[in-house]
């Protein structure tokens, strides 16, 4: 029967609602800043300028954006299969391990052109492998994937500490880091690439991974909506009973979707290890995997939305760092609070305003809503 809470037009659902959610987060953040005796408008201005105001800041923003695109896509692919992959953090971490192993093993022998595809493959395989175990446990044993992926984040963190302290550490130093890769294993920075074309821009960690992230967006979009595997993934996610009826094996799809998800997370390792650090070190995943959940939720699990949401979070990271640097009243913790508010409103509470919006829309434009 007629259900009034049925459908909003796409532009409201995908465009307006997330914007209102973010605006709400900023209003609450502003109140918080005002309560601390600071000027929220000035803070906003510093953050905006810090994120977009000059070439270097823009580079940093896009560099963070790259990571969020990878982890956001990862969450989205799993989500289409009805799985909540909380393990992006660990999968990104292990993906970086794969990249580092490939680089450390081969940077003496192979040129960049061969090393890059090997590293991409290694990141994907290691990330996917780390996601495979929870996926297998779910598919065959019914273990809840939220629980197992969270636990695998901790296992990944401990494993990396062990490996870096005991195995991969460069001999003769105190800090748990591997040796630096030779420069043929370095992904070119964007400022270098643009320099080759005669466009001088300020230095930043932004590197070619951004392009790979955008390619991944296109690939994920094609996979999910235009291949039979995507069809099967969405079928399992939307209605597992109907999928079984259709002859689709949910266990296979769970494993496929989780491995794809893990592979996408693993690409964070390309950006961080091959693009920026050029060595393996601790904690380079730095919460990107977790923020990817909010990115995906906010981007409505669609690559276009994910790019926009990743850009927002990239700007928050970079602008927030700038704000903490400029004004000592803003401790890094406060920046985390602001980021947390955005995650809260656009992620966890993303459906809070749906009901009121639907009622408002019904009232404003009778005759446009299609009955469910």
């Amino acid at each position: 029967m007629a259900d009034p809470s049925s459908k909003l037009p796409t532009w409201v659902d995908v465009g307006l609602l997330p914007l209102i959610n973010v605006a709400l987060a900023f209003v609450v953040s502003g109140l918080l800043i005002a309560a601390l005796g600071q000027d929220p408008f000035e803070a906003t201005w510093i953050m905006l300028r810090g994120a977009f105001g000059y070439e270097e800041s823009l580079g940093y923003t896009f560099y963070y954006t790259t990571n969020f695109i990878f982890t956001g896509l990862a969450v989205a692919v799993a989500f289409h299969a009805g799985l909540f992959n909380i393990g992006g953090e660990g999968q990104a971490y292990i993906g970086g391990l794969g990249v580092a192993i490939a680089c450390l093993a081969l940077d003496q022998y192979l040129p960049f052109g061969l090393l890059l595809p090997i590293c991409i493959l290694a990141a994907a395989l290691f990330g996917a492998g780390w996601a495979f175990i929870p996926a297998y446990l779910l598919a065959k044993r019914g273990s809840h994937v939220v629980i197992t992926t969270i636990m695998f984040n901790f296992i990944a963190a401990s494993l990396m500490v062990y490996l870096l302290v005991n195995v991969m550490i460069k001999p003769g130093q105190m800090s748990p880091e591997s040796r630096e890769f030779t420069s043929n294993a370095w992904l070119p920075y964007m400022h270098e690439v643009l320099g080759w074309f005669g466009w001088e821009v300020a230095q930043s960690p932004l590197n070619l991974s951004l392009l790979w992230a955008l390619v991944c967006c296109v690939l994920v979009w094609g996979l999910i909506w235009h291949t039979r595997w995507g069809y099967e993934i969405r079928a399992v996610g939307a209605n597992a009973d109907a999928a079984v009826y259709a002859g689709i094996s949910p266990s296979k799809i769970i494993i496929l979707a989780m491995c794809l998800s893990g592979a996408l997370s693993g690409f964070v390792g390309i950006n961080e290890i091959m693009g920026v650090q050029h060595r393996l070190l601790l904690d380079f995943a730095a919460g990107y995997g977790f923020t990817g959940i909010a990115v995906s939720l906010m981007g409505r699990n669609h690559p276009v939305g994910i790019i926009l949401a990743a850009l927002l979070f990239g700007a928050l990271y970079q602008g927030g760092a700038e704000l903490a640097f400029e004004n000592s009243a803003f401790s890094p913790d406060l920046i985390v609070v602001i980021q947390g508010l955005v995650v809260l409103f656009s992620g966890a509470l993303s459906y809070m305003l749906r009901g009121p919006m639907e009622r408002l829309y019904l009232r404003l434009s009778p005759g446009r809503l299609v009955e469910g």
Partner: protein
Amino acid sequence: MTVAGGATSSGTGHPAPAIQLRGINKRFSPVHANRDVNLVVPAGTIHGIVGENGAGKSTLMSILYGFYQADSGVIEVGGQVCPINSPEDALAAGIGMVHQHFMLVDVFSVLENILLGAEGGPLLAPGMAAARKEIARLEADYGLEVDPDALVGDLAVGLRQRVELLKALYRGANILILDEPTGVLTPQEADRLFEILRAMRDRGVTVILITHKLQEIMAITDNVSVMRAGQMVAHRETAQTTREELAELMVGRKVLLRVEKSVAAPGDALLRADGLSLIDAAKVTRLDGVSLDLRAGEIVGIAGVTGNGQSELLEVLSGILPPSRGRFTVHDRAIDQDHPCTPEEMRDLNLAHVPEDRQRMGMISAFAAWETAILGYHCDPAYTGPILLKTNAIIDDTDGKMARFDVRPADPQLTSDSFSGGNQQKLVLAREIERQPDILLVGQPTRGVDIGAIEFIHQQLIDMRDAGCAVLLVSVELEEILSLSDRILVMFEGRIVGEVAAADADARIIGLMMANAHEKAETEGAAAHG
């Protein structure tokens, strides 16, 4: 008693009507779900409301019970204007509702369920004692016998429904709305329910019965109102009307209630089941030694009350579940526990399956219609290349299916859940039938489907049979089984308890078999089988 249309005042000299609705409008833009609806329900009567799906019956009752608020219009209860903005208001006005799907807690006792939400204080004991007394009184008054200490989960469906009735009465309802109350009952249980409803009416309770089964309207109601496309199109005294007239009023044109079909000419058995059993994860025997033959060119109907193994039979035969014991053959392929056959392989064996519950299994609500239209066949080279789906080809194909099966609106891009039940079902049928299967398993082909579409769907099944397809029809609508089947098998607790040739079929005997209360019928059935 005046039941004429229009905003009649309750005639002078008569008591105020239990319910009077005047000029009720409700819009889910752009759909005008209720348009200037007037309704007078005299106190102490059983009043039927009939109409196709989407005619606005449920919306109207939801307004009366406070789930929705009308955009305009007046609700009067017992002659007093009574704004109803929530179910609490409705309860306060003495209106109770028994939903199609029961709202009971399985692990609570009957008493606890009745008490739920009306505990009467922080401590349970005094409320329980009072409730026990009150329930005993209600039982005696209305013949609503239920053991108050039984767990609801252990009760048969008919008894659960009584618990729902008790719940409403315990809350002081003297106006009861029943939404499709007989959908899950055997004919005998339904008769019992009707006795209870008559007892209630005799004691002054007003009953509003929403149903699509015209024979029930004729059997039990005093008055009937017909809705079509959001409007009340007629009010009749039941004694003054006929099923044919009501059907015509509902649909707006003449309707064939009986299906025209020739005598079947069955061919070879395409599917043979031999002692199929299914034991589920909880070690409950769902199927118990089912044997049957399904021959080309015949429709075999499986009658039975919901939950007696019919669903499981369909799922085993379609490859969704492997049998725990026994075997069956499809064409020449033998299938048993050690040699299972996936639904995909079943499709390759030219077996098609229209699942019982299209919402749960037959379609994916969130998918576009064109995506639902290839469900199960999405790996067909006609629909997919080596990597990419042939979206345009699929959409063209779906356009064709929609035209041939009269699916409305004929837009493959709409999400599957934006179609009415009948149109969803036609889309699912189109998908399965157009593959021209040798064997067609059909579950509840017309559940939630409007009368106009039922006619069409029945004709499609007959056409399939006449084209030499072996059709297995599972339905809880006994009438549907009787009018379509060439042979009828009756299932009870996972077993086939009787077989009747269509020519000898009799609703009463089948009804008794469905409750497994007819030993004689069983032996007769076995004899007929031999």
